[in-house]
């Protein structure tokens, strides 16, 4: 069996890239990040159905940019800057005060909205890259079984997107059998509900199958210990949520986010450690964490750290206000740092070489 990169390494790599994207709204930095993600996916994605997830995430990203920009134009209000055109202002009822329909649309407004949309899309594309690259099944193996309820939630969450993609491909092929449109908006709308419903129910079936096979079995544990782990877990979750919010929201003070996040993680880890005591789990073929995994994760930590530092140091360059309007070329160092994250395209083992001998999923129709 050829070696494969640890699934968690892919996720950490992608999340670090997403953090990088969250620190800047400069399109000249965001676009290289999406390119890096796309390049690595093209080089190392899995041949399984979920390997095609990336394309769908990119499409979703484009939709987000379009919606974000359109909304900015429609609800323009009186934005300052170089006015492009003026839309008539439609009076709205009093309870909607604060929102203005129509108004003067400026270049700064459009560019700003586009950049914000691009930032969101880039974060999404990074998540898509992780979905394409990491096998959900191998990630599942790393989910601690000790915290059963959380484990089931994570199982459903992790497998949802891959199931969704497999189901989407399957349903499209079937619609063709029934002589219906498979492409375009009509095709998409018609399959949305069954696809989401089916993917969710299959994720839950999977959780049931794992349960029937002993996932989350407890050893002999005192109820005191159980309450302690549950309490720690709750504490950890709430601290992490606030911490992540503070960390991702660039306007919140860094001192709010980081310490809470670290504390939350620490509490979570100790809950897992406590919960794992006495669980009888063993490993058949443990996923190893070696230099390839370290290199992958570190390659994305480099831009995350450098871009975060720069956004604190030169906020105007990393999150420009476009006033006056000019090309805001990001520092060369940040660009170079982003390029470092392309490293896994060579460092990670090629999984398609491993799976080429296998028959692909016998879907009914080749798309």
């Amino acid at each position, binding site marked *: 069996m050829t070696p494969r990169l640890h699934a968690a390494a892919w996720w950490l790599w992608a999340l670090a890239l997403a953090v990088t994207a969250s620190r800047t709204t400069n399109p000249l930095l965001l676009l290289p990040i999406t390119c890096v993600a796309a390049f690595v996916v093209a080089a190392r994605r899995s041949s399984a159905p979920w390997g095609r997830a990336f394309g769908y995430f990119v499409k979703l990203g484009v939709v987000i940019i379009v919606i974000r920009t359109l909304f900015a134009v429609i609800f323009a209000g009186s934005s300052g800057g170089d006015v492009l055109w003026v839309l008539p202002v439609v009076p709205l009822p009093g309870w909607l005060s604060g929102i203005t329909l129509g108004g003067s649309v400026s270049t700064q407004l459009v560019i700003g909205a586009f950049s914000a949309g691009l930032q969101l899309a880039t974060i999404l594309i990074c998540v898509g890259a992780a979905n394409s690259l990491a096998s959900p099944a191998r990630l599942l193996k790393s989910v601690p079984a000790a915290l059963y309820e959380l484990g089931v939630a994570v199982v459903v969450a992790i497998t949802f997107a891959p199931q969704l993609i497999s189901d989407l491909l399957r349903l499209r092929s*079937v619609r063709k059998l029934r002589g219906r449109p498979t492409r375009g908006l009509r095709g998409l709308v018609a399959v949305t509900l069954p696809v989401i419903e089916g993917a969710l129910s299959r994720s839950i079936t999977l959780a049931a*199958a794992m*349960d029937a096979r002993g996932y989350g079995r407890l050893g002999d544990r005192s109820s005191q210990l159980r309450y302690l782990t549950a309490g720690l877990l709750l504490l950890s979750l709430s601290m992490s949520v606030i911490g992540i919010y503070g960390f991702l929201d660039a306007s919140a003070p860094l001192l709010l986010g980081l310490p809470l996040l670290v504390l939350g993680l620490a509490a979570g880890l100790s809950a897992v450690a406590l919960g794992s005591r006495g669980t009888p789990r063993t490993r*058949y073929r443990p996923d190893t964490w070696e230099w390839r995994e370290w290199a992958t994760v570190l390659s994305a930590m480099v831009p995350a750290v450098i871009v975060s530092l720069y956004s604190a140091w030169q906020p105007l360059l990393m999150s420009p206000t476009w006033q006056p309007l000019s090309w805001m070329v990001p520092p060369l160092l940040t660009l170079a740092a982003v390029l470092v994250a392309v490293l896994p395209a060579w460092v990670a083992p090629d999984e398609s070489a491993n799976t080429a001998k296998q028959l692909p999923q016998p879907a009914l129709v080749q798309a």
Partner: protein
Amino acid sequence: MINFDNVSITYADTTTPVLHRTNLTVPEGDLCLVIGATGSGKSTLLKAINGLVPHFTGGTLQGRITVNGRDTATHRPRDLADVVGYVAQDPLSGFVTDSVEEELAYTMESLGVPPSVMRQRVEEVLDLLALSHLRNRAPRTLSGGERQRVAIGSVLTAHPRVIVLDEPTSALDPGAAEEVLAALQRLVHDLGLTIVLAEHRLERVLEFADSMIYLPGSGSPARIGSPEEIMDSSPIAPAVVRLARLAGWSPLPLSVRDARRHAQSLREEIALAPSSAAAGLPLQQERSIDVVDAEVRYGGTTAIAHVNLSASPSEVLAIMGRNGAGKSSLLGALAGARRLSQGSVRIDGVPPQSLRGQQLVRSVGMVPQEPMDLLTYTSVERECAQADNDAGVTHGHTAQLLALFAPEVSAHDHPRDLSEGQRLALALAIVLAGKPRVIVLDEPTRGLDYAMKTRLASHLRVLATAGHTVVLATHDVELVADVATRVVVLAEGLVVADGGVAEIVLASPIFAPQVAKVLAHGGLAEKGIPLTPESVADILVAR
């Protein structure tokens, strides 16, 4: 080992219980066979043994179920995992890992078996179920039969005391089914394992059963007894039992071997009967299917190659072959769903790949192996309405067709909640709504009880008489003997045999139907051996 004490199970949104006041005991070391019509609660009964009902499905459980002394009300499925191994009907949905080897080890990992023991047991099971060449494959890339064997293997490695299997052989070819059943029987004999299995294809499992549970459905109490007792009155019976009832043999034989001891006089009677010269349809020149040198490839693998095949209207063509022989690929190519890498497929002279919308629906219709794949809506009603729309027929047409196959299905049901057989009926109704010239069915009898199978068979005959061409891929020899007019055997993607039903089916004991095995005098190759109980009845009536 397994004890049901006055058990009733009611699901959340219904008022009638699926199981009602059921009392039964399965002793240790028994192979217990559960039978019943589709929707009679077989799956519920099986899931209740390892606690999936009600812990994962919801609903209320009244009474007490104990397995190896553990009460399922207080023990969740994961707490029973070391005692009960459960193999679901659709193994793919329950695969947790990326490779066969890891799949086999998964339960052991949860139970905390030491790694060295795990390795040894994985190797044992790989050999036992002939899976070692697949050890690094991803489960989703396996054929149906291989998946089933992996699912059984993944349960075996944990050495449970009880194994529960929901239709373990329904997706398997006759050879693979025999292997799996032989492996199960060895476990019963050598290790004293208790096995509970539900199965529709009684002809395959009946002779292995120590006891049987019959679920009559619709709230009547379950019956448990020896196979002879249950078979004596059960409306669900395999061909050999139906033949025995016809001939009035007593005690009732359950296996071909037993039946042959009684069969001497019947054989003579049939030999005296005027040989009803195999009618055989007049060969038509008109061709509805024309396949020339077809090849389908995925990546580096060739699924079918150099396939030449033609069929005329009114033919019922059965395609047989091992799991993974390329049957589904051939059917996909016929339905226009698979692109050919070489050669051509024509339906009435037109390549189905080029057809769109109503043209396609009217030319060729396919019921896929997993009928759920064809269903995309949240209610039977909407599904039928959409099918009427797609086919451009009057509203309500599909619903009428459905009522023909499965009258009990309500228009408001969610397709997901239907039984396997009911889903097949719905998919078939949808496909038939377009009155396609060619009807393609992939494994249509999976999960069908005998009554539904009879209805399906007679409807297929009606369709063929009306000038449709029916192509079905199946492992079900009894169905082939019943409806097919011609058989094509595929192996490794190549057509290895093409000919009349009797000629092909009787060529090997693995394919031969039970009745033929019972009535064969010298060898199976004799001319004019009847293949089904019905044809025996016809011969006896004709005299």
